[in-house]
C-alpha cells in the first residue's frame, strides 16, 4: 500500500485545520494520557460487553481514542455523492426486479444478473393486483478510500444488510465518555437526529397497517458476529429483536409468537441473508427463515428492509458499469469517484491484467466478479510461486474476476505503544432513505486496516475502529446533546408480550444459574471434605455419600467414585470439573449463552452482574491448582450466583421476565434438593447422623438448624427443615409454594392444571416430613425416603416439561417436501 494521503498532516507537514482543535486537546493530556485513554476505552467496551461473553467471541471491535475528523465541507461532498449513488443503485434494482430494460439495451452484461448469486428470482415474481412497490433499499453503506488525487472514492457498496450502524453508536458513546476534552474542543455533529429520522421513516413505511406500526429486527441469533450490533440497533430504533423461530405467517400477515398469542409485525428490518428469508421460495437452506414471508411481502402486508434481493448489487463487477448507468438512469454523471475496476471477461483486459500480475503486481487488486463478501487478493503480497499459482487460477476462467486499481489510500494517527502512529484507514459511511430522499449519517466508522488487508467487502467480526467526527462549521448547528445515550434498558413488557422464545430462555437461565450454584456448592463440599487427608472410615463413608450426590448431579462419573483406592480419583475428577470442557465450565457457558440471548430483557446492572464477573470467576477456577484454591474459587462462584439472584429480585420488574427466571430457578432448586436428599439418606439407620449433617450442609441450612435445635441431630427436625418448613428458602416446600405462585401470576390466575400439579408436589413434601415425625423409629422411616424423593424429583421434571409445552411453543420439525435442494431440516425448537 502506498498510503499517499495523511488525514492529519498536509503536504507541507502542517496539521490540517479540521484537526487542530482535536490535536490541541490531545496535546493537553498528561504524559501517558493517550495510553490511559486507550485502556479506558478497552475497559469500557469490556464492561458493556461488546466483546460478548460468548465462548470464542472475546475479540470484538475495539475503538481507538483518537477520532477521525471530517470537515463539514468534505462531509457535504460525501453525503451528496453517496445519496446519488444510493439513488442509482435503487434505480438499477428497480429495473432488475422489474422490466430488465437495462439488460435488453445491453448496458448490463447478462452474467451480472443471471450468474449473480444475489439475484433472487423469487423476488421478481409478480401478482396481478400488485400495487406500486416500496423502495427495495432502505439502508445503504459504502466503503471509501482516498485515491491518488486525495479524493474519497467508493470501493465497495453494501446494499443488502449493511453492518456497522450500531457499532458507530457504541463507538461514539464510549469515545465521548473517554475523551471529554476532545469532545469539548472539537464537537462532532450528533448522531441522534439521523436515527430519529430513520425511526420516523420506518413508522411511515408501516402505515399500511394504520395506527402505530410494529417494527422488528430479524437477527440470525446470538452466534452471529454482529448480534451485539443488532441489539444496539433494536434499542436505538425502539423495536423488537426477533429470530426466525419467533415469527410466523398466518393468512398472509407476519406475526411474533408471544405468550399472549400472535402480535402483528408491519416492518421487518432484515439482518438475515436474503436467501434464508423464506424456505418455501429459496429452498430450505436452514430453518431460520419464515415460510410464507415473501407472500406476505408481495401483498404489502409486511415491508422488508432491505428487500431480500438487494444483495445482487454487492457484486464487485457492478463497478465496471456504474459510470455508464448513471447518465442513462439519472441523466447525470457520478458525483463521487469509484475505484477504477475492469472486467476480465474482456479478453484484451484479461491479457493486460495477467501481464501486470507479473510485471507490476502492486497495480491491481483482484476480486471475484460476483462475490461482494470475498476479500480482495493483493498479488503484491504473494510470493513468486503463489503469484504464479494465482495467475493460473485467474487465467483458467478470467470472466470470474475483476481487477480494481490499488487505491493510494490514506493514513490516520492511531494510538500504538503510547504514541500516535500513522495507519492506513478505510471509511464506512451510512445512509437511510427517509421516505423522501437519502440521508447520510453525520459520522461513520473508519476501519484501521490490518497488515495485508486491502479493499472493503464484508465487515470483519473484529478489528480496530475510529469514530468519525463530522465537524460543524458553525457552532449554531449543534442541536441537542452531542453525546448519544441509548434509552434505558429495562424489562418493558408484561408476561403476555414476552416472545415465547425469550420466556423459554429466561426459564432456562434461571435453571442454569441455580444448577451452577448447586454444582459449586457440591464441589466445594467435596473439596473441603477431601482436603482433610488420611480420612477415617467414617469420613470415607461421608465421602461416598458426597460422591453419590456428585454422580447424581452429573459432576462425577461412577468409575471415579471413592473405592478401595481411596478418594484420589474423585478429588482429581472434581478439580477437572471446573476446567475447560468440564461439567461446571459447561454450565457456566450455558449461563453465559442464555444471558446473552435474553440480554435485551436485562437491566444494565443485571447484565453487569451476570457477565464479566462470571467470566473472571471461571477463569480463576480454571487456573486454580490444589484443593484449597479450588474451594476458594468455588466460594467466589457461589457468592456470584447469590448476587445474581439478589440483583434479579431487586432489579427486575415483576413482569413476565422475572416470573420465568424465578420459576426456572425454583424448579431447579426443588429438583436438585430432592436429589441430594435422596442420595444422602441412602445410608443404614446406624449411620444416619452423617447423612443428616450432609443434608443440612447441602441445603445450606446448618446455621438455621443450630439456632433452633443446637447440635442434637435428629431425623424429624432436620427433614422438616429441609423438606416441609415453608419459611426455609432452601427447603423444598418453599420452592413448591413459589412455583405455584409464579405459575398463577404468569397466567393471571387462569392456569388451573399446572397450579394444581405444583400444589400436589407441596402436599407430598409435607406428607413426607409428617411421616417421619409420626414414625415409631425416625431413623428407619428416614432411610425409607429415597424412593419417594426420587419420585418427587421425577414429578418436578414432568411439571417442567408441562410448562415448556404450555408456554414455549415447542414447534414440530420443519421439513421440506418436493424440493431437490433441501436436506431435511433440524427440528425448530422454541429455545434459541
Amino acid at each position, binding site marked *: 500500500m502506498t498510503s499517499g494521503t495523511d488525514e492529519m498532516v498536509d503536504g507541507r507537514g502542517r496539521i490540517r485545520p479540521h484537526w487542530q482543535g482535536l490535536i490541541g486537546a490531545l496535546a493537553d493530556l498528561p504524559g501517558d494520557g493517550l495510553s490511559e485513554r486507550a485502556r479506558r476505552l478497552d475497559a469500557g467496551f469490556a464492561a458493556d460487553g461488546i466483546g460478548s461473553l460468548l465462548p470464542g467471541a472475546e475479540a470484538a471491535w475495539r475503538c481507538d481514542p483518537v477520532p477521525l475528523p471530517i470537515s463539514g465541507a468534505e462531509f457535504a461532498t460525501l453525503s451528496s455523492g453517496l445519496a446519488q449513488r444510493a439513488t442509482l443503485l435503487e434505480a438499477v434494482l428497480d429495473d432488475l426486479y422489474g422490466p*430488465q430494460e437495462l*439488460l*435488453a439495451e*445491453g448496458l448490463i452484461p*447478462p*452474467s451480472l*444478473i*443471471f*450468474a449473480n448469486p444475489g439475484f433472487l*428470482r*423469487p423476488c*421478481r*415474481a*409478480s*401478482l*396481478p393486483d*400488485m400495487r406500486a412497490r416500496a423502495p427495495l433499499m432502505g439502508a445503504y453503506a459504502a466503503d471509501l478510500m482516498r485515491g491518488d488525487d486525495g479524493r474519497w472514492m467508493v470501493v465497495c457498496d453494501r446494499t443488502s444488510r449493511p453492518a456497522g450502524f450500531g457499532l458507530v453508536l457504541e463507538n461514539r458513546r464510549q469515545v465521548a465518555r473517554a475523551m471529554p476534552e476532545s469532545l469539548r474542543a472539537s464537537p462532532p455533529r450528533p448522531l441522534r437526529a439521523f436515527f430519529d429520522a430513520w425511526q420516523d421513516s420506518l413508522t411511515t413505511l408501516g402505515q399500511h397497517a394504520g395506527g402505530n406500526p410494529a417494527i422488528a429486527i430479524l437477527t440470525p441469533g446470538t452466534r452471529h458476529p454482529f448480534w451485539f450490533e443488532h441489539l444496539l440497533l433494536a434499542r436505538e430504533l425502539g423495536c423488537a429483536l426477533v429470530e426466525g423461530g419467533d415469527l*410466523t*405467517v*398466518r*393468512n*398472509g400477515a407476519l406475526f411474533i409468537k408471544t405468550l399472549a398469542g400472535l402480535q402483528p409485525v408491519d416492518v421487518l428490518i432484515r439482518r438475515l441473508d436474503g436467501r434464508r428469508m423464506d*424456505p*418455501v*421460495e429459496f*429452498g*430450505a437452506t436452514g430453518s431460520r427463515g419464515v*415460510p*410464507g414471508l415473501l*407472500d406476505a411481502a*408481495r*401483498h404489502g402486508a409486511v415491508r422488508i428492509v432491505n428487500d431480500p434481493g438487494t444483495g445482487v448489487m454487492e457484486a464487485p463487477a457492478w463497478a465496471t458499469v456504474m459510470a455508464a448507468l448513471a447518465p442513462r438512469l439519472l441523466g447525470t454523471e457520478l458525483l463521487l469517484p469509484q475505484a477504477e475496476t475492469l472486467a476480465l471477461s474482456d479478453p484484451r483486459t484479461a491479457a493486460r491484467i495477467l501481464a501486470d500480475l507479473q510485471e507490476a503486481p502492486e497495480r491491481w487488486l483482484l476480486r471475484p466478479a460476483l462475490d461482494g463478501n470475498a476479500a480482495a487478493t493483493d498479488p503484491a503480497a504473494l510470493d513468486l510461486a503463489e503469484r504464479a499459482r494465482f495467475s493460473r487460477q485467474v487465467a483458467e476462467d478470467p470472466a470470474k474476476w475483476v481487477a480494481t486499481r490499488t487505491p493510494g489510500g490514506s493514513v490516520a494517527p492511531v494510538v500504538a505503544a503510547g504514541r500516535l502512529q500513522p495507519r492506513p484507514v478505510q471509511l464506512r459511511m451510512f445512509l437511510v432513505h427517509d421516505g423522501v430522499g437519502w440521508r447520510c449519517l453525520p459520522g461513520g466508522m473508519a476501519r484501521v486496516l490490518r497488515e495485508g488487508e486491502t479493499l472493503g467487502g464484508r465487515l470483519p467480526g473484529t478489528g480496530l475502529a475510529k469514530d468519525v467526527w463530522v465537524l460543524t462549521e458553525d457552532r449554531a448547528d449543534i442541536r441537542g446533546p452531542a453525546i448519544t445515550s441509548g434509552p434505558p434498558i429495562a424489562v418493558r413488557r408484561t408476561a403476555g408480550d414476552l416472545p415465547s422464545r425469550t420466556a423459554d430462555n429466561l426459564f432456562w437461565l434461571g435453571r442454569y444459574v441455580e444448577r451452577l450454584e448447586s454444582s459449586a456448592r457440591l464441589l466445594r463440599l467435596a473439596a473441603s471434605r477431601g482436603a482433610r487427608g488420611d480420612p477415617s472410615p467414617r469420613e470415607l463413608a461421608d465421602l461416598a455419600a458426597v460422591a453419590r450426590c456428585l454422580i447424581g448431579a452429573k459432576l462425577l462419573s461412577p468409575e471415579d467414585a471413592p473405592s478401595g483406592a481411596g478418594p484420589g480419583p474423585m478429588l482429581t475428577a472434581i478439580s477437572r470439573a471446573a476446567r475447560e470442557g468440564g461439567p461446571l465450565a459447561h454450565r457456566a457457558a450455558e449461563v453465559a449463552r442464555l444471558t446473552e440471548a435474553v440480554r435485551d430483557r436485562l437491566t444494565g446492572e443485571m447484565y453487569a452482574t451476570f457477565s464479566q464477573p462470571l467470566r473472571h470467576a471461571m477463569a480463576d477456577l480454571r487456573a486454580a491448582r490444589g484443593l484449597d484454591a479450588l474451594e476458594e474459587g468455588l466460594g467466589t462462584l457461589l457468592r456470584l450466583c447469590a448476587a445474581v439472584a439478589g440483583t434479579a429480585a431487586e432489579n427486575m420488574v415483576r413482569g413476565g421476565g422475572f416470573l420465568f427466571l424465578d420459576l426456572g430457578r425454583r424448579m431447579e432448586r426443588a429438583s436438585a434438593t430432592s436429589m441430594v436428599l435422596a442420595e444422602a439418606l441412602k445410608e443404614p439407620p446406624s449411620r444416619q447422623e452423617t447423612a443428616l449433617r450432609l443434608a443440612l450442609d447441602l441445603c445450606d441450612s446448618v446455621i438455621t438448624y443450630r439456632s433452633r435445635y443446637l447440635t442434637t441431630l435428629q431425623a424429624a427436625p432436620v427433614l422438616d427443615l429441609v423438606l416441609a418448613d415453608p419459611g426455609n428458602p432452601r427447603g423444598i416446600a418453599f420452592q413448591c409454594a413459589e412455583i405455584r405462585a409464579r405459575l398463577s401470576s404468569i397466567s393471571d390466575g387462569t392456569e388451573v392444571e399446572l397450579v394444581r400439579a405444583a400444589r400436589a408436589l407441596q402436599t407430598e413434601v409435607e406428607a413426607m416430613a409428617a411421616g417421619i415425625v409420626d414414625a415409631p423409629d425416625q431413623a428407619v422411616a428416614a432411610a425409607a425416603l429415597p424412593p419417594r424423593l426420587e419420585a418427587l424429583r421425577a414429578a418436578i421434571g414432568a411439571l417442567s416439561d408441562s410448562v415448556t409445552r404450555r408456554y414455549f411453543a415447542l*414447534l*414440530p*420439525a*420443519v*421439513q*421440506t*417436501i*418436493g*424440493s*431437490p*435442494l433441501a436436506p431435511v431440516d433440524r427440528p*425448530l425448537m422454541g429455545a434459541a
Partner: protein
Amino acid sequence: MTSRWRLRHATTYTYARPVDMATHMLHLTPREMPGQKVLSATIRSVPEAARITTGTDHFGNVVSWLFLDRPHERFEVISEAEVESGFPPPPAAETTPPWERVVAEAAGEVAEFLFESPLVPIVPAARAFAAQSFPPGRPVLEGLLEVMSRIRREFTYRPGVTGISTSVEHVMTTRAGVCQDFSHAMISGLRGLGLPARYVSGYIRTYTPPGRVRMRGADQSHAWVGAWMGPEHGWVDLDPTNDCVVSTEHVVLGWGRDFSDVSPLRGVILGGGRHTLHVGVDLEPAES
C-alpha cells in the same frame, strides 16, 4: 394442426403424523404461450387451503401458493385444465444458422440459460457428449436433433434408479435415468458449448392411439429441453426421452433453468413425520 387436451394431475401426500401448518408452492398450471391456449385451469386441494395466491414467476410461469393452517394427515392437490396445443413445426434443419453464430448471438434475456444453475452444472462429460454432434459450421438444429437422438439411443430409460436431486455427473456415468435426468444432461452439454438451453416441465399424452407406440413419461410429470436457435428462429422444444420434436402431443406447464425452478410442488411443512407420495397424471384428448 392443434389438439385439445383435458389434463388432470393429482398429487397426494400421506403423513405419518399430523402436519400442523404447511406452505406449498405450485407450478401446476399450464402457461399461455404461442402454440398453447389455456381454455380453463383450476387448482383445488383437500383439505381446502386457508389461502391461495396466484401470480407469475420470474420466467413468466403461473405459480400458486397454498397455505394450510389446520392439522391434517393427508394433503391432496388436484390441477385440472383444458388446453389447446399445436406448436409450429421447426424450420428445416439445414436452413438454421451455424451453431457458432448462435453462440455469438446469445445475449440479453436468452443468456440466462447459458449459465450453471442449481441442478445443472456444466459437466465436462456432458459437454464432450454434445460436442460430438457439433462439428464446426454445422447448422444448429441439425446438431440439436442429433444430440437428442443419441440420448434416446445411448441412454437407458430406467425409472427408480435416480431421484429428484441426481447429479448430471452421475447420469453421464450410468447413462440411465428418466426424463428429468436426460433433460438435465442435454442442457448441461448444450450450455457447455455456449448454446442457451432451458428445462421445460409439462406432460405428454397418456393414451396410446391404435397402432402408435406408448410414450415414455406418460402418467406423470414429464420434462424436456428448450433450445435456442438464434434470434430469427427462437426456441425449439426437444424431447430426448422420446426422441421427438414437441408438436401436438405435449402440454407445457412452464420452464426454468432446471427442475428446481419449476418443481411442480414444493412445500415446507411443520410436523408430519415420514410421508408417502402418490402422483397420478391423465392427459387425454378432450371431446369437442
